[in-house]
């Protein structure tokens, strides 16, 4: 069954349909986009249903693409990809629904761009050929660049150019690394890269090349300055896509590229990566606490959460030998749950704020007060999203952070002690956000006129909250799905290549 290709090109078909309908009425555009988005959810369900828990790749397809160069159209899904692909389909559908409810113009182009981002992201998640992955990785920049630029805030041109340039800079080094490996291996297949013996200096070079690209995408601490600008200028659906899907490309890249291909370099550079992650967790959380622009606040919170993800990935190299068996899987399982959970909760936070922004027209924290009295439904759901971001038990945000913290405690006491600060600091900025926006007296006249959420918006909020709580209570679903793939990754991550 060509389910992989179907999942991949569904987005392209959706984009094409949306472009062709640019002259139809708005209702037809919205309806077809929603139907296609729902088809995407059905596809995700088919993938889930047909998935066996095995260690290897399923739904594999391999066709020659540029055989002279050794590049093949090679797709394959394992547990890690499946989780992220399903997340992509869900978020894409939610973005389309958001655009239908909240945004007012340029519908066909927006739908085309959302479908484009979906297609390229899924392509990156399921590509098993390094050049194919690179093509999708770079190509996902284009629709996002256009989306932020066309439907964004006042500083959108600067923000979107910064996003594109910064990410492309990292990707160029990634390209060099991939080309070098392809020369050594004779082919671009990821499986061949995994089996390729490399000396330590080669591994170092490739590790640094890959890490630069993923660190910019994720983003990791010194390379994060594009994210607050991009998020604050993007529209609601754009922020949702960016935070929930595109950031995960970085995490996925670490799991798929760094760990299997250059494990010795990962071992050697793990302390550096752990330190950078801790800086991201603590320092960025401190920065988040003083933000006055709500979208920038949520953006910095995302950076802090991604710091947790990289901590989970690289602290496993700090585990002592006796604790390896018990805790290494826990760490990576926490990474997967955290990525999916952060996808849902940050999408929710951006979505909820998008609803507020549509009514109040301001991104400044100071312009909001007492919204709970006017929009109680939104407040309820927003609270759930923020609790997940904080890492409150009962929500999925807790599960991921808890696993990662458990693993880092087994690795190194001080690492865990620093990382645990996230629980405190995120509570500070999360509750500050809630207090300013929702509690207090209704100060501004505009707030009195704000209507509470309507049907479409309620559906969106309920869907996300249900997902957050369901995964928070039954994280087993995600863990079981990704377990074999993570165990295979762990085996690959501990190979000594030279």
């Amino acid at each position, binding site marked *: 069954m060509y389910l992989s290709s179907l999942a991949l090109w569904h987005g392209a078909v959706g984009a094409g349909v949306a472009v062709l309908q640019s002259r139809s009425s708005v209702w037809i555009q919205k309806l077809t986009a929603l139907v296609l988005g729902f088809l995407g959810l059905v596809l995700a369900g088919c993938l889930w249903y047909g998935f066996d828990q095995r260690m290897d790749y399923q739904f594999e397809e391999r066709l020659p*693409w*540029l055989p002279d160069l050794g590049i093949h159209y090679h797709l394959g899904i394992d547990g890690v990809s499946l989780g992220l692909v399903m997340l992509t389909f869900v978020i894409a559908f939610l973005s389309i629904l958001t655009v239908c409810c909240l945004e007012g113009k340029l519908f066909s182009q927006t739908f085309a761009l959302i479908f484009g981002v979906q297609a390229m992201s899924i392509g990156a998640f399921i590509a098993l050929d390094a050049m194919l992955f*690179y093509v999708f990785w*770079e190509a996902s920049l284009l629709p996002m660049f256009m989306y932020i630029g066309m439907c964004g805030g006042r500083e959108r041109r600067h923000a979107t*150019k910064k996003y594109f*340039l910064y990410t*492309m800079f990292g990707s160029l080094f990634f390209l*060099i690394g991939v080309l070098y490996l392809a020369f050594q291996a004779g082919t671009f297949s990821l499986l061949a890269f995994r089996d390729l013996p490399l000396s330590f200096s080669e591994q170092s070079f490739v590790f640094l090349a890959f890490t630069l690209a993923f660190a910019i995408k994720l983003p990791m601490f010194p390379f994060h300055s594009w994210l607050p600008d991009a998020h604050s200028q993007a529209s609601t659906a754009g922020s949702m896509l960016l935070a929930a899907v595109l950031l995960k490309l970085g995490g996925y890249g670490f799991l798929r590229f760094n760990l299997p291909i250059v494990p010795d370099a990962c071992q050697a550079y793990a302390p550096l990566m752990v330190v950078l992650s801790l800086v991201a967790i603590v320092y960025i959380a401190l920065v988040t606490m003083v933000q006055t622009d709500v979208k920038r606040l949520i953006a910095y919170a995302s950076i802090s959460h991604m710091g947790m993800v990289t901590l989970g990935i690289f602290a496993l190299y700090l585990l002592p030998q006796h604790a390896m068996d018990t805790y290494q899987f826990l760490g990576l399982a926490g990474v997967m749950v955290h990525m999916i959970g952060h996808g849902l909760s940050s999408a929710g936070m951006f979505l909820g704020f998008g609803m507020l922004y549509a009514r109040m027209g301001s991104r400044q924290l100071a312009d909001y007060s007492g919204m709970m009295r006017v929009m109680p439904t939104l407040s309820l759901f927003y609270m759930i999203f923020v609790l997940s971001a904080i890492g409150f038990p009962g929500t999925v945000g807790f599960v991921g952070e808890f696993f990662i913290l458990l693993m880092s405690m087994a690795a190194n006491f001080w690492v865990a002690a620093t990382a645990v600060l996230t629980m405190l600091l995120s509570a500070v900025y999360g509750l500050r956000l809630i207090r300013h926006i929702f509690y207090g007296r209704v100060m501004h006249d505009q707030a009195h006129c704000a209507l509470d959420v309507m049907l479409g918006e309620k559906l969106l909020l309920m869907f996300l909250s249900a997902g957050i709580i369901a995964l928070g209570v039954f994280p087993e679903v995600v863990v079981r799905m990704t377990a074999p793939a993570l165990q295979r990754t762990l085996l690959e991550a501990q190979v000594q290549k030279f």
Partner: protein
Amino acid sequence: MSGFLCEIVLSLGILLLLIMKPFGLRTSVHGCYYVMLVMGICAVISCYAPVGTVLQVSAQTFFVMEKWTYVVKLGILLMSAVGVYFLDDVLLRMQNVSSVEIFSLVLLQTLGMFFVIMSVHWISLVVSLELMYLPMYALVALKASDKRAQEAACKYILMGALSTGIFLYGVSLIYAVTGDFNFVNWREMASMTHAYAHTDPEVLWLTLPQAQTLLAVGALFVTVGLLFKMGVAPFHWWVRDVYEGATYPVVALIGGAPKVVIALVWIRVFMGEYAALDESWAWIVFAVGVGSMYFGHMMALAQERIRALMAYSSLAHMGFVMIALALISQWGNQSAVFYTLGYGFTVVSVFVVLGAMQIDGRDVLLMEDLKGLSKHQPWLAFFLLCALFSLLGVPPFFGFFLKVQVLRALLQAKYYVLAVVSLIPMVIAAGYYLRAVSLMYFHDAETGQVLTFVGGRVHRSYFVLASVLLIALGVFPNIILSALIP
């Protein structure tokens, strides 16, 4: 002789065109159709040309036809045809311009290009180069009343003459050493174990080191002459003014196909390895290439006028090609030819689309004129988007694979640092390509400015086709990439 039917047909076409006017036949209205008919016939003929045809006169081989020659000829014909088709509209808008002579100039340029890519003899190469360049000088000076065009043409002629002079000097030195004008046998000549003299042995007898030095100096002069013609830094001073002065279709004609031709000349001249030309020669060309890339992109970043921006960006792209050519490897040559062909097509299309637009009755000159293009002319804006991203080298457009080919050639020759160094300027290029896209899509047009498209349905569908091609070739690049592998 039958192998050169294509050139014979082209020459006859030019003659016919030139005698049409005195006979009073109407060619002023849409004379371009005649030109394109001739080109089309040539294209069809050239597909059936027998490979390995050789033109020899008194035991000296002048022209050789190889397998890939006809593919490049097709490419050149296509680029020139596009330029001519859009030139026609521009000529209709200008008064006091006789289109017959201008079209014959374009055909002469094409003929010259054909002869250049088939030359294996120094003399025939120089003569063909002049045949190719003289019409280009005249085309730049199309508008007699435009002072800028005249100045540009003067600079072009001077630079062209200078570069040909330098080239000839190098040729003369090489001839002094080798005694033969044919450059297929360089390798033998350069690795010779005995000195060779073509005149009286008592008068001119060279020792081996002297011969090798002369050969190296001659090769250096030839290199510099070619670099001048390619327009890379630090021999680029004519490029900006010429691009600025000429009208858009003429810029398309002089900025697209000639670059392919010069790259092919380079490959023919420097095929194989020489004892006289060692690593240091390659490093000179690498330095020129890298410097050209950085310089070109950085200068383009500062430009406000579109043609100047494209001129500096052509510097940078050709610098990248130079790096590939300096490798003197099969991969390097192949990737350089692909790159110049792909770049040539894209750039020709960009120039003609800019030339087919008018804003408030004048040409589109400034970057600012592009503001809001996506609202007025969505398909043109989409084409420009595809073309600019293809030039930048972002997947999923075709330009990405062209860049990957060159990088592969670099990595195969183990120049890792050079590969990284030559990729970084892409980020600088993104600065101005993104600015153009941002102006088109993220800005609204200035109030009162109206951007109109001067062209019919055929013109518009060409751009739609071109953008579809750029994406389709990016998804299935093998169609083109496997066609040129010998």
